[in-house]
């Protein structure tokens, strides 16, 4: 079918879909002018479009309907139920015809004349009834919905959703243009910040920022689609197939939120379907066979999608009978694919990959489902054509695992940015299982020969130093104190990557790297940070396999069962163990712990009636502080939440998350303590979450920074402003803002006073000389401590008045 025709069909369809609701509403109220117009436009467009093609019947029908509707619009005729039915019948017929046109068939002759005749005033709606009855079940729910709104005239007719086709490279160009715009904006933002606040520019700039982020979202959506759209058809496919073959299969889908190019989704649809068919047909045994082999009756087929830089890997694993090396090799020798001598030299892995060779099917009997010549060779060819690859690994009797790698020319992924030394690297978030802070004792960092190991959830996990992986210089931070990023590969293997620190996380636009850089084998792509600095995206899978950490054959399916078993055995509640500032070993239920924070002492405010801490711009009540001065510059805080309320608990040291296996002995004497229990033979005080939140919990409000007005001088904006901002103030940027405190030079203040100006807020007065008049009331402008103290006390006052408000 040629493109023009396809466009015609697509457009007509879209309009049909969009006008379906209109038609029903019109039926409910034939006098509704807005609906009439919509339907008129539809038939008019169809008629117009028909002119390009040779569809005389379609043109005749739409023309007749258009005429009748035009009469109504011109007031020559009043629409009645008969007319509505007749028009509906014609629209219905148009829909049928479009279907037929798309299929390239001929529509059965006849019937049109009656439909057209039914449009005449006073005609009997004979044929119309039949069509309306046909139409009804489809539109039933909508009609009741519309029937409930008796005033449809007021509702605007929704514009039909239209679509156009665009070449992909045009989209690419628009997309990179938008990326450039974002960077230009960031650059501009940077310069604006340097230049200080400029009300006339900041407003429009903010607007530009908002628009830009909207555009960016829209552009991104233009190309991307969740793999879910592909996955959603799979359960049905598996169900139908397993029914047909008399098998029981449970399908497990993971990673449906991975996004990839629409195009790419279409590319992998067939290969994936084929592999699933294969797995159910050849892989998973019949229920009776499975029981005989001591397996669960229901086979498990799991499909997991992961994203790694420019590649998506889809792992399809089943717990069926696995591939039989001997059988494959025999067949390969028989068909002359390999020689017998050759065969003896081949590894098991190499032999298994033979299934992707042309003309290969090990099925003993050719079934209805697979093994009809379209083999895995076609799957591999299709994937390779788009630059992908496929591998198989299998353990006899345990299962088979297909790994598909599909490239992405362009992708946006969530990523974690880590640092070693001064340099940053990105890791795709999809691999990250957990981040463990260095000081956590749980890690139990050990060296075994040349390799390092850490303990994670009671298992020893190999640990790679990112510095070693990249051949970079060892940093100043000793190995056992680095932050561990626990990474799980698509195959299910887990390893730890030691980095100096975590920098940030966010969405990364991944761009391909030049071949010479890709050759290093540790990078998957590059991305630009907000400041325009390129950052390399690590190829986690490749790094793991370079260090022999990825085992393809280990079946995810088996591990899943183990984990399930482990879960069912231990229903014990978990708690976070820590030492408080009195040296007590305490625990708080893990469900309450939202995050572990490290805050500088400056984030803690002791001036109010009770201590508070500012975490991520939110003021939270703080408990657990020692009496007297804080012992360190930074304080470790447990951020606790009960769902709505939040508070932070200061701790001396965080030990580990433990399971509370021992009995909990309730304590009556202290309401803040729920119970005392034993962990590893030592007593631990379990904090009563209920009492804690009852007493201290608060729904956090974003820290609305108090506003400070500063003098309009060069000195104030370049030297004073940063100091004021560091003290937790927003600088008043225009005359309208109500300030909480104002800073004025003393001479200005005196002048204002002389003019009887009233000050809405407390005023801090600055003097120019270290020692001078009004020493008590003014602060020397380079007296940092004095200024900060003055701002502090003013902020305390502001908050007090704010909470009274």
């Amino acid at each position: 079918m040629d493109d023009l025709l396809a466009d015609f069909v697509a457009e007509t369809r879209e309009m049909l879909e969009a006008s379906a609701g209109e038609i029903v509403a019109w039926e409910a109220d034939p006098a509704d002018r807005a609906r009439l117009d919509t339907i008129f436009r539809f038939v008019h467009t169809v008629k117009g479009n028909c002119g390009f093609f040779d569809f005389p019947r379609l043109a005749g029908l739409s023309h007749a309907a258009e005429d009748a509707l035009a009469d109504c619009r011109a007031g020559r005729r009043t629409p009645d139920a008969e007319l509505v039915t007749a028009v509906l019948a014609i629209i219905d017929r148009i829909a049928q015809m479009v279907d037929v046109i798309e299929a390239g068939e001929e529509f059965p002759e006849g019937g049109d004349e009656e439909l057209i005749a039914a449009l005449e005033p006073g005609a009997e709606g004979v044929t119309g009834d039949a069509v309306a009855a046909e139409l009804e079940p489809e539109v039933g729910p909508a009609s009741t919905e519309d029937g409930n709104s008796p005033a449809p005239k007021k509702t605007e007719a929704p514009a039909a959703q239209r679509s156009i086709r665009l070449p992909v490279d045009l989209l690419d160009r628009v997309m990179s243009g938008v990326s450039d715009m974002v960077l230009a904006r960031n650059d501009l933002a940077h310069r604006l910040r340097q230049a200080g606040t400029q009300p006339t520019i900041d407003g429009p700039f903010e607007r530009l920022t908002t628009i830009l982020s909207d555009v960016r979202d829209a552009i991104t959506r233009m190309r991307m689609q969740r793999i879910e759209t592909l996955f959603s058809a799979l359960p049905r496919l598996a169900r139908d197939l397993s029914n047909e073959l008399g098998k029981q299969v449970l399908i497990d889908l993971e990673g449906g939120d991975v996004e990839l190019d629409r195009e790419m989704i279409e590319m992998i649809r067939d290969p994936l379907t084929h592999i699933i068919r294969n797995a159910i047909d050849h892989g998973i045994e019949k229920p009776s066979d499975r029981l005989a082999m001591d397996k669960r009756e229901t086979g498990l087929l799991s499909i997991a999608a992961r994203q790694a830089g420019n590649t998506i890997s889809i792992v399809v694993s089943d717990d069926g009978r696995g591939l039989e090396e001997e059988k494959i090799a025999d067949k390969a020798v028989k068909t002359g694919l390999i020689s017998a001598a050759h065969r003896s030299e081949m590894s098991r892995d190499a032999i298994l990959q033979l299934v992707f060779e042309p003309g290969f099917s090990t099925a003993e009997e050719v079934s209805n489902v697979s093994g009809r010549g379209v083999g895995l060779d076609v799957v591999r060819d299709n994937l390779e054509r788009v630059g992908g690859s496929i591998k198989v690994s299998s353990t006899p009797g345990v299962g088979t695992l297909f790994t598909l790698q599909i490239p992405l020319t362009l992708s946006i992924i969530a990523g974690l940015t880590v640092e070693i030394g001064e340099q940053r690297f990105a890791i795709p978030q999809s691999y990250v299982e957990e981040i463990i802070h260095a000081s956590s004792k749980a890690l139990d960092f050990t060296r075994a020969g040349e390799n390092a190991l850490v303990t994670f959830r009671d298992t020893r996990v190999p640990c790679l130093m990112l510095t070693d992986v990249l051949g970079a210089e060892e940093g100043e931070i000793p190995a056992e104190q680095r932050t561990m990023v626990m990474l799980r590969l698509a195959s299910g293997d887990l390893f730890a990557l030691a980095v100096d620190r975590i920098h940030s996380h966010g969405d990364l636009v991944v761009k391909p790297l030049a071949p010479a850089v890709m050759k290093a084998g540790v990078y998957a792509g590059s991305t630009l940070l907000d400041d325009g600095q390129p950052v390399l995206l690590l190829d986690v899978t490749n790094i793991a396999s370079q260090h022999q950490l990825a085992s393809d054959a280990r079946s995810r399916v088996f591990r899943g069962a183990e984990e399930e078993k482990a879960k069912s055995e231990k229903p014990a509640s978990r708690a976070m163990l820590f030492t408080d500032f009195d040296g007590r070993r305490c625990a708080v239920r893990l469900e309450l712990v939202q995050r572990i924070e490290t805050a500088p002492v400056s984030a803690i405010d002791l001036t109010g009636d009770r201590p508070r801490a500012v975490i991520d711009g939110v003021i939270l009540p703080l408990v657990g502080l020692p009496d007297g001065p804080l012992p360190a510059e930074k304080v470790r805080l447990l951020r606790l939440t009960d769902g709505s309320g939040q508070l932070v608990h200061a701790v001396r040291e965080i030990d580990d998350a433990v399971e509370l296996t021992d009995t909990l002995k309730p304590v009556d004497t202290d309401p803040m303590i729920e119970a005392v229990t034993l962990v590893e033979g030592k007593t631990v005080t379990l904090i009563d979450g209920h009492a804690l939140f009852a007493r201290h919990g608060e729904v956090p409000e974003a820290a609305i920074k108090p506003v400070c007005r500063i003098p309009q001088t060069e000195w104030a904006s370049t030297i004073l402003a940063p100091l004021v901002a560091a003290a937790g103030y927003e600088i008043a940027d225009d005359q309208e803002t109500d300030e909480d405190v104002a800073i004025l030079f003393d001479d200005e203040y005196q002048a204002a006073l002389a003019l009887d100006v009233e000050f809405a807020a407390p005023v801090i007065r600055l003097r120019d000389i270290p020692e001078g008049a009004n020493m008590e009331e003014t602060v020397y402008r380079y007296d940092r401590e004095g200024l900060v103290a003055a701002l502090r006390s003013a902020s305390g006052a502001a908050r007090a008045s704010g909470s009274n408000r």
Partner: protein
Amino acid sequence: MNELLVMCQIAGRRCAFRANDVQSVIEIGAITPVPRTPDHIAGLTALRSQALTVIDCRRAIGFDPQAYSLDHRAIVVASSGYSYALRIDSIEDITSAIGEPGTVPGGFGAEWSNAASGLVETRTGPALMMDLSALIAGQVSIENAA
């Protein structure tokens, strides 16, 4: 043929790039080093939203960059879909070629023979015509090939 050429100095010699291959000349900003890559890859640098691979031409040909001056500008070229920023001693001028690049008896010496595709006469004198793909591949692969 009067092809336009971008003239520059690499390792103290006059070299030429086809103006058609050259996308732009940029001020080089911060370079992000890329560990585990051949020496001649100096790192990545950003050109708007694009990341360019920075190639030090002197090292790619087999000279020690320390011995020569370094231009703060770089020549941006595209090769098989990727963009590279080439670092050289200095960028001179744009001129036009007089005739096709040719060879000279005796060659240009081991390093240069690999990186240069020939000698080209220009309005401002002779220059070595650089071979982009050889520069990008660097010396390592040349040694391997030999």
